């Protein structure tokens, strides 16, 4: 991949957790070891690997959400769009405005459906009135939720079904107008129909956004991804174009994982 195609560049990233009593006193646990990674821009990259290999951890370093956890050590550099996101002068809310995250389970804010989508534009761009209404409408339309909720925009978001809530959370992330969208197993809590809708949405998003998704459903990664990062026990084992990775993986571990013969898959 040429420099221009790189959307996110990770250099020598090391993540450690530790200090908790239940994790064995002061011993630190290495979650990610020496990650060097280029993630292509305006494409959909899937991070795959067995449970506990550090997929979500890697994803959450990209919007610096990891550092809100207690006792996490982060070393290394991450560049998004050529900019060092761990630079001391970088304002974290501004970074997160550019790098949106949608989590595994939808958590609507304690507000109305409208309020959930409007929250981001309100705090970042101080929008009001019609302008805000337009953004809410267009974002809800993009996630194919508008028809279902247009008559009850002022009702609590918690009253929606899980599938609708997940699409609402996507709309909420889109409303901020990010450049990068991070998805952490966004379909794992959804029924097949809703997951299909969300998958379609992700497919349409990758034209305009750099999408990085964590998935432990291999078939899903195969369907959606352009580029694949395979993690195992906190290390990058293999990266490459999705097609090539799934048809002829170069590493023994990737081969085993794809065949589903690895323990704990």
């Amino acid at each position, binding site marked *: 991949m040429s420099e221009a195609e790189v959307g996110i560049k990770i250099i020598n990233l090391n993540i450690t957790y530790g200090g908790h009593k239940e994790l064995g006193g002061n011993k630190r646990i290495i979650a990610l070891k020496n990650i060097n990674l280029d993630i292509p821009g305006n494409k959909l990259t899937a991070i795959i690997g067995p449970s506990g290999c550090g997929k979500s951890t890697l994803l959450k370093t990209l919007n610096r959400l990891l550092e809100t956890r207690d006792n996490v050590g982060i070393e290394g550099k991450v560049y998004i769009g050529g900019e060092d996101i761990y630079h001391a002068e970088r304002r974290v809310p501004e970074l*997160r405005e550019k790098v949106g995250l949608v989590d595994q389970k939808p958590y609507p804010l304690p507000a109305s459906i409208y309020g959930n989508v409007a929250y981001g534009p309100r705090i970042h761009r101080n929008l009001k009135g019609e302008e805000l209404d337009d953004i809410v409408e267009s974002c809800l339309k993009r996630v194919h939720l508008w028809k279902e909720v247009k008559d009850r925009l002022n009702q609590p978001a918690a009253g929606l079904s899980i599938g609708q809530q997940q699409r609402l959370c996507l709309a909420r992330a889109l409303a901020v107008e990010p450049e990068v969208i991070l998805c952490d197993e966004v379909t794992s809590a959804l029924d097949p129909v809703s997951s299909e809708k969300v998958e379609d949405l992700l497919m349409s998003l990758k034209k305009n956004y750099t999408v990085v998704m964590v998935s432990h459903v291999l078939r899903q990664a195969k369907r959606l991804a352009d580029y694949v990062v395979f993690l195992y026990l906190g290390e990058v084992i293999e990266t490459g174009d999705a097609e090539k990775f799934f048809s002829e993986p170069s590493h023994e571990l990737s081969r085993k994982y794809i065949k589903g013969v690895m323990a704990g898959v």
Partner: protein
Amino acid sequence: MKLRYLEERMFKILIGISVSLVTVPLLIIIGTVLLKGGKVLVDNPGVLITPPGSRYLITGEGGFLHAVLGSLYLVIPATLIASLMGFGIALFLQSDYTSQRISGSIRTCLDVLWGTPSIVYGVFVLTILIFINQRGCLLAGISALTLLELPIITRYADEAIRAVPKELKDACYSIGTTRYEASKVVGRYALPGIIAGVLIGMGRGIGDAASVIFTSGVSSVMPGGLFDSVTAMPILIFQQASSCYPTVRGHAYAAAFTLILIVGILNFLSRFLVRKLSKYVPGGK
């Protein structure tokens, strides 16, 4: 009968005994206060809104408006201050502001303070009063009650905020909120729990005599400014109930009735408020 069924039966009986041991005296107390106090108030509703006469505690002339107002003047500012500070401290104790090791020790301190007898707070504030050469006054009473209520409200708010799903906070941060903005969302989510804590703290404050008696003095005139001495309902009830004049003793029931009524009204108001404010919180209605 099989042993396990016998066990089940015994356990049920034990639960029944414990419940009645608590509820029966409670019902007797509330019933007596309502009946006797209610009777005084029905016969002479003026006691509630009349300032005390100059020899109130002997003849029962006038009413006990001074103590009703005194209690409200003491408890409402104290609860407001303690709630604001408690909410702040509770936020500080969360993982996004401080390490869990530090907040663990602060929580222990707060739990100890929670169990501290209120007279200790009274004496503490009294010491300061003596040091600055000031007589007992409303302001000192408010300070003592604030100290008394603070650990209670803080711990309740802390637990309520801790119970907010971590993912909700993550969702806020992922949109790009500042910590303050995220705290506002979290606070709204935790509001029912926080209000419960505020009510319990206030209940403790309004019923407390020991911290007030040392700091606000005992006054039998209407409350004046922040630097004048005031009295509170529990102190008044003590004075009335230990009086040798039956009229004044009767007033003790009326005062107790009023105290219960005030707590009841404040309780109702805040529940109403919570319902309004937590319309969007799952399970908040």
